[in-house]
Structures are given as C-alpha cells and as structure tokens.
C-alpha cells in the first residue's frame, strides 16, 4: 500500500465521518464569499449612501472570519486528537514525523480545498439570493443582479488559505510535541473523568448560581433608575456581563455536577438505565467541557439577544412611525397642507383631516414626577405641549383637570409619572392649578410638538383658551398647528406619499409621513438585522457542529459501555432512551441557559429599540431553538448507529 493509497483511503473514511464539518466549511465559505461579493457589488452603493452598507457588510465579514477560524481550528483540534492512535501507529511502524505531517497535510488539503471550491461556487450562486433578501428586508426596489467579482474570489481564497496554514501549523506543533507513548494515551489524559465531589466544587457551584442571579437582578434594575450617571450605568453593564459569564462558567464547572450529584446520592447506587447513560456520563464531562459550553452559551445568548433586539426594532418600525406621525401624514404649515390636500383631491384620494392647535406651556410637574434619572430638566418648569379636549374624540376633561397622553416606554423609564397628583400650568401672568388624572397611550399630535415622545397635556377648552391668551412666546415652536391627514384607503398610501415628496416642502421638519419614517427605520434596522441574522446563523451552525463533534467523540468513547450494557440485556431501545435524555441535557443546557441570558438582556433594554417585545423575541427564540435542535437530532442518529454496532 503506497502512501498515496493511504491518503486516499483515509480521505474516503473521513468524509463519511466529517460530513458535517465539510458542510459547515462549505457553508461558511459560501457565506463569506457572498458577503465579500456584496461588498464589492456596485448595487450596494444604493445602501451605501444612507447607512454605509458596504462598511457594515465589511465589518460583518471580518466577524465572520473570526467565528469561522475559531470554529475550524477547534474542530481540527478535536479531529487530530481523535486520530492520535493512528498517528502513533504510523510512528510505531517507522514513519517519520515529517512524513506523517505530509500525509495529514495532503489529506486535509483535499478535504479543505475541495470544500473551498464548492463553497465558492455555491456562494456565487446564492449571492444573488442573499442580495435579494437584503433588498426585500430593507424595502429597496433595486434589481438584484450580480457580476462575478474577481476581487471577492481572491479575498476569499487568501483568507481561507491563511486559515489553512494556521490549521497546518497547529497540526505540525501537535505532531512534533508527541512521543509514541503519549499519542496512545492522549484520549485518556484529556478526560480526567472520574473524581469524587469535593466541598470546593459545591461552593463553586453555589457561587456560580448566585453570580448569574445577581447579574440578572442588576440587569432588571439597569434602567430602573438606580444608576443615574453614565459611569454608574457603564459600570453596571460591565458588572452584569462579567458576573453572568463567570457565573455561567462556574455553573457548568460546579453547579451541574453538584445538582446531579445530589440526585445521585439520593438514589444510593440504584440508578436506572436512563440515569446511567445521562446523569453519570454528563456529570463528568461537564467539568472538562465547562469552558467550551460557557463560550457557546455566551455567544448563543449574544446572538439571540442581538437578533431579538434588531428584530424588535424592525418589527416595531411601523408602530413607532405611527406614534411619531399621529396619522398617515402630518404637516404644520397651513399652506403646505392646502397644497397637499389639493394634490390628493386631484388624484382622487379620499382622506380625513384633523387640525389641532398645540401650544407650549411651562408646567410644574414636581408632584407627579417620580424620578428624573439625571435628565437635565427642571421639574418645576417643564415645557409641555398642551391641547384642548375639543380636539380629541372620546376625551372630555373638567375645567380643573388634565389628562396626559402619548407616552412611550423609553421615556417612561427615564421620566416616570405617578398615577395622580396636582400640577400647575404657568402662563405669562397667571398660574393655573390642575388636577392630573392619569396617562393615556394614544398619540394625537406628531413628534414635532412632543420633542420626540414627551406626553402632551389635554385640558378643558376654557382652560386651553386662557392659556392660549397668556402664552410665553419664548418657548413656542415655529408652528402651533398640527394638521394630521389620514387616508380613507390604506392602498393609496404609497401614491400619496409620492405626492408629498414631490411637493418639495422647504424644510424636512415641516412634514412627516408614516410610510417614510417606517421605511427609513426598516432600511437601517433591516441591514443590521440582515447582518446579525447571517452572523447568528453562522454561529449557530458552527457551535452546533462543535457540540456534535464532541458528541461523536463521546459516542466512540462510550461504545464499550454500550457493549457491556447490551450484553447485560438492555435493548437498543433502552439505551436510546438514555441517550435521548443525555442529549436533551447536552444540547439543552447551553440552549436554555443561553435563552435565559438573552431574555434578561433583552428585557433590560428592549425599550431603547422599539415598542413591541414579546412577539419578535419569541419568534427569534423559537427559530433559534428549532435550528439548534437539528444538531441534537443528528447526534442522536449518530449514537443510534454506534449503539447498533456495539454488539
């Protein structure tokens, strides 16, 4: 058997084992190539203008390389350790180390560059699809056509060749450092499996749980008003990050085996087959895998959290735009409004008009303001937009009363209002005391008047007239009339929007369009979501693969155990049930912990991103969980094969 023959045989065998590795490699090459192609694509100029699309994609591709190279190096590390016996055998029969290295290099070369070529090919064919997805998400009307970019090709090849060289370097160091003896021993030395539980471990476990919980606790307080200055806020964030990550590590290192140990102690040796295969096996590997699981959990949490947040802002784009505009279109100049109405009429677009007078009044809100969280305003003289109750349907306040309306969660966090209390409206000459009755959610005037999200006060018509007579001109806005236009037929929205844009109103501040704002938001958040989405997917696949490879190794190692158990009379079904339980833990624990982390991360700051939290977050989590479970299923299938062969 010649060396070439040997290489070929190894390759054939490995391909069957490492199909997932090849798949992950092809996937990452394809994605990277597609990203780089986008980066060099002239069509991206469109996006580039507004939000630096190419730069964002470039940053994403750098991150992608980071994730992929860590994955490849790690996977390679697993593989070479697994083949240490074979390497030892080659050495034993007199092959030199450099010859073994050459064999491995050649073998890897075919596997790696084969995947690279396929990956580039696929990447090229899907890059158009990816561009179409991007356009779809960001709501752009460009036609997705792609040219083969030789720059992209060169960049991809160079980057992946560099990674290949790194892998080879690692293999070289690995082979160089090993003697024949240690090669035979490598598997047993890395799994220092069976040890007794110590008090120390129990303490570590408890500390882990405590630090995770305290991190969660602080995160729920993050924007609750306890941290007022920038430094405190920043410090709190660092603390949360640190305590959660370290806590996660300690949790894996100690808590899991600690909890399992309690269960096991209680059983007093009387374990059933499920527990034999899951409990005892996980307990001991949990420790050696603590670091890996921590990394996977943390980055999963990060991916889910970021995906959720970007999806939240994408998802709430329309809602936010609605709040900003208070209608389909809002204008603040009567002449603009008249022109727009004429245009609408000329185009047969039916609409409703809603005119509201808005004045700005300094109000003493001291009594009803909770805390201001370092906001630089004077609660005794806050400039507040005021309208008459006549302008709002369904709301009628008595002369001595007022209702506030139109708040968002973000403002509520920084400027919380109490349920009731007394306030004062200060005009030039007189001060009108009013009874504050509460806060409503509806937005009745556009963001122009509310400084982006401040609640407005609704007062009785007579009070409004008195305040209007007595206004302080210094704090008034340029316009004090809000003209809201709502179309009767939603289908005309786009057409009407075009008309408004064509009118060339001199200043952007003079009008706002719901469609325009929501599109703008979607464009920005869409690109971010697109990038985060693909990075998240890459991470999902690579981390899933790593867990799968780990399980493959474990399965091989535990094969003798399955042989014993089957000889003792356990059926394949019995064993498989135990494996199910084990895999639910192995894949489930990092997933559940990751989901919890991201849940708390999202809960602590979602209001900065949008107005809806549950739907988008749950959608993201469900999709992530679904895709992630595929790897768990694959590993169960692999175990099934191992168990089958065990007897």
């Amino acid at each position: 058997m010649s060396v070439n023959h040997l290489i070929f045989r190894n390759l054939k065998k490995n391909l069957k084992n490492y199909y997932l590795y090849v798949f992950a490699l092809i996937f990452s090459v394809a994605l990277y190539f597609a990203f780089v192609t986008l980066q060099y694509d002239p069509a991206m100029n469109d996006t580039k203008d507004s939000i630096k699309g190419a730069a964002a994609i470039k940053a994403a591709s750098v991150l992608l390389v980071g994730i992929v190279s860590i994955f490849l190096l790690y996977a390679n590390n697993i593989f070479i350790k697994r083949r240490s016996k074979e390497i030892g055998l080659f050495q034993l029969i007199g092959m030199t180390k450099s010859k073994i290295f050459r064999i491995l290099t050649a073998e890897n070369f075919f596997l790696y560059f084969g995947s690279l070529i396929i990956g580039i090919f696929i990447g090229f064919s899907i890059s158009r699809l990816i561009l179409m997805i991007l356009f779809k998400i960001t709501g752009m009307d460009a036609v997705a056509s792609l040219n083969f970019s030789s720059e992209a090709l060169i960049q991809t090849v160079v980057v992946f060749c560099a990674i290949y060289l790194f892998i080879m370097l690692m293999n070289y160091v690995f082979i160089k450092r090993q003697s024949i003896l240690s090669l035979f021993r490598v598997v047993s030395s890395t799994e220092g499996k069976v040890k007794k539980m110590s008090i120390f471990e129990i303490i570590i476990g408890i500390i882990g749980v405590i630090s995770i919980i305290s991190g969660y606790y602080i995160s729920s307080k993050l924007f609750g008003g306890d941290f007022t200055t920038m430094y405190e806020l920043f410090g709190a964030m660092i603390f949360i990050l640190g305590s959660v990550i370290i806590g996660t590590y300690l949790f894996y290192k100690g808590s899991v085996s600690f909890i399992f140990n309690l269960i096991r102690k209680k059983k007093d040796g009387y374990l059933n087959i499920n527990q034999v295969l899951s409990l005892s096996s996980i307990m001991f590997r949990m420790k050696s895998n603590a670091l890996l699981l921590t990394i996977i959990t943390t980055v999963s949490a990060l991916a889910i959290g970021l995906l959720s947040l970007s999806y939240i802002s994408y998802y709430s784009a329309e809602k936010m735009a609605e709040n900003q505009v208070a209608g389909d279109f809002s204008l603040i100049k009567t002449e603009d409004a008249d022109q727009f109405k004429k245009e609408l009429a000329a185009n047969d677009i039916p609409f409703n008009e809603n005119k509201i007078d808005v004045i700005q009044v300094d109000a003493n809100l001291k009594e009803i303001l909770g805390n201001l969280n370092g906001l630089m305003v004077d609660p005794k003289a806050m400039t507040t937009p005021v309208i008459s109750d006549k302008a709002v349907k369904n709301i009628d306040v008595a002369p001595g009363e007022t209702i506030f309306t139109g708040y968002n969660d973000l403002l509520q966090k920084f400027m919380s209002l109490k349920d009731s209390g007394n306030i004062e409206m200060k005009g030039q000459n007189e001060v009108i005391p009013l009874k504050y009755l509460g806060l409503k959610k509806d937005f009745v005037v556009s963001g122009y008047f509310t400084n982006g999200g401040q609640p407005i006060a609704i007062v009785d018509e007579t009070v409004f007239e008195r305040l209007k007579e007595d206004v302080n001109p210094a704090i008034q806005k340029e316009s004090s009339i809000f003209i809201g236009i709502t179309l009767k037929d939603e289908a005309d929205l786009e057409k009407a929007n075009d008309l408004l844009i064509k009118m060339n109103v001199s200043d952007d501040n003079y009008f706002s369009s719901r469609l325009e704002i929501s599109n703008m938001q979607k464009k920005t958040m869409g690109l971010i979501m697109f990038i985060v989405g693909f990075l998240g997917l890459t991470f999902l696949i690579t981390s899933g693969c790593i867990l799968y490879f780990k399980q493959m190794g474990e399965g091989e190692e535990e094969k003798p155990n399955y042989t014993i158990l089957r000889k003792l009379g356990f059926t394949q079904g019995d064993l498989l049930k135990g494996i199910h339980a084990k895999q639910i833990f192995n894949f489930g624990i990092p997933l559940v912990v990751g989901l919890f982390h991201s849940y708390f991360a999202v809960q602590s700051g979602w209001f900065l991103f949008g107005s809806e939290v549950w739907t988008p977050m749950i959608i993201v989590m469900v999709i992530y969980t679904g895709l992630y479970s595929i790897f768990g299923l694959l590993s169960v299938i692999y175990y099934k094969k191992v168990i089958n062969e065990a007897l």
Partner: protein
Amino acid sequence: MHILEANKLHKSYGNKLNKQEVLKGIDITVEKGEFVSIMGASGSGKTTLLNVLSSIDKVSSGTIKIEGKEMTAMKEKQLAEFRKHHLGFIFQDYNLLDTLTVKENILLPLSITKVSKRDADEKFNAVAAELGIQEIKDKYPNEISGGQKQRTSAARAFIHGPSIIFADEPTGALDSKSASDLLNKLSELNQNRKATIVMVTHDPVAASFSSRVIFIKDGQIYTQLNKGEQSRQTFFKDIMKTQSVLGGVPNER
C-alpha cells in the same frame, strides 16, 4: 434437570467461497448447580461456543435451550429480555462502566427489573459481603485493583440470581493470588447459591475449581473430565494430563 441443553451446534464465519467452520456439531448439557469449565487451545472455538451459548452470537444451525426455552428461535428483543433476567456475565476485561461507582455497577441488572430499593440494598449487601467488596462500594473502577474489579463484575453477575452465569476467562487478567481468591469465591457462590456457572478458560488451575471440564478441539468436543470425589490437586493433574494429550500448548501457569 437440564438447565442448558445444546444440540448439534454449528457456527461458521465468512461467505460461501471462503467459509470457516468454528463449531462443528457440539452437544452440551449442563445440570442445575453445576460448575462447568470449557477448555481448549487458542482457536479451538471455546469463546465462540460461550458467545453462542450466552446468546451474544447467533448459531448457524443447531438448538440451544435454557430452562427449556429455546433461545435459537428468539428475536433480538426477546433475547435481550432473556439475558436481562436469566443470564449473568463475567468477562476477562471486567466490563465495568467507568462512570459508575462499584455499587452502581453491581445494581445495574436490578434497575430494569421491578425490584424495590430496599430489596436491592439487601441483595447488594448479601452479595457484597460474600465477595468482600463492601468497603469499596463508593469507589470508581479506576480506583480499585484488578481483583476487586473482577469481584465487582462477579457480584454484578450474581445479584439478580440468574439461571446461569457465563464467565469468559475471568482470571485471564489477574495475578495468581487474585485469581485463586476469585475462583474460591466463585465455587463458594456456586455451592451456597446453587448457581450454575459455565466458564471458559485456558488455565488448568482455574479449571480445577470446577466440577466438570469439557475439552474442545477444532470445534468439536474432545473429551470430558468429572471431578467426582477426588481432591482439587488430583483433578488438576488429570486436567494437565488431558491437556498434554490434547496437543495444545501446555500452559505454564
């Protein structure tokens, strides 16, 4: 009463063109409470015979009955069920699960049957006392000696009171002191519990602990020796004699 009855066992490996017959029509009967050794040179087919008798391997033709139930006709699932309740195993390389403590390993066969925890504890204490492994019950296999491992393995084989126990070279990896310790324990258990033991070995010393020795050569039964009333020493000499006649390489041990 025949606890094990095997008729005309044939076993061959390989395909039609290149067929190798390992067992060529073996008939064996084992009575309840017997301690039978199977001896033979390497390649004589003794391990194959044990695997076939213990349902781990399938015969090419022939029938095996244990307690009157025909095993050769059973499906894989039934066989597993049968092994669970009626068979016990002791292997040369112990076959203990590294991740479980000694006690957990021993209790493993009970976990499938519906034995209450108290009964299980009782059974464990009884068998552990007999084999002298009570002190090490909370240790893991890598913390105990080879002899202790094999006694653990034996305890596991005995705990659920199987109809028959198969031992494959149980002393193969032990030093002579641990080996004779184990064999003494085995014959004690054989007498106290009326347990039936079928042991494969190539060691005449080990074989001399049993009540009957079956010699196998080239896949057929060559001869049998009964211990009867004679002492272990004389029985050992008989075995040695037969073994040298058999033409296998006499074992130095």
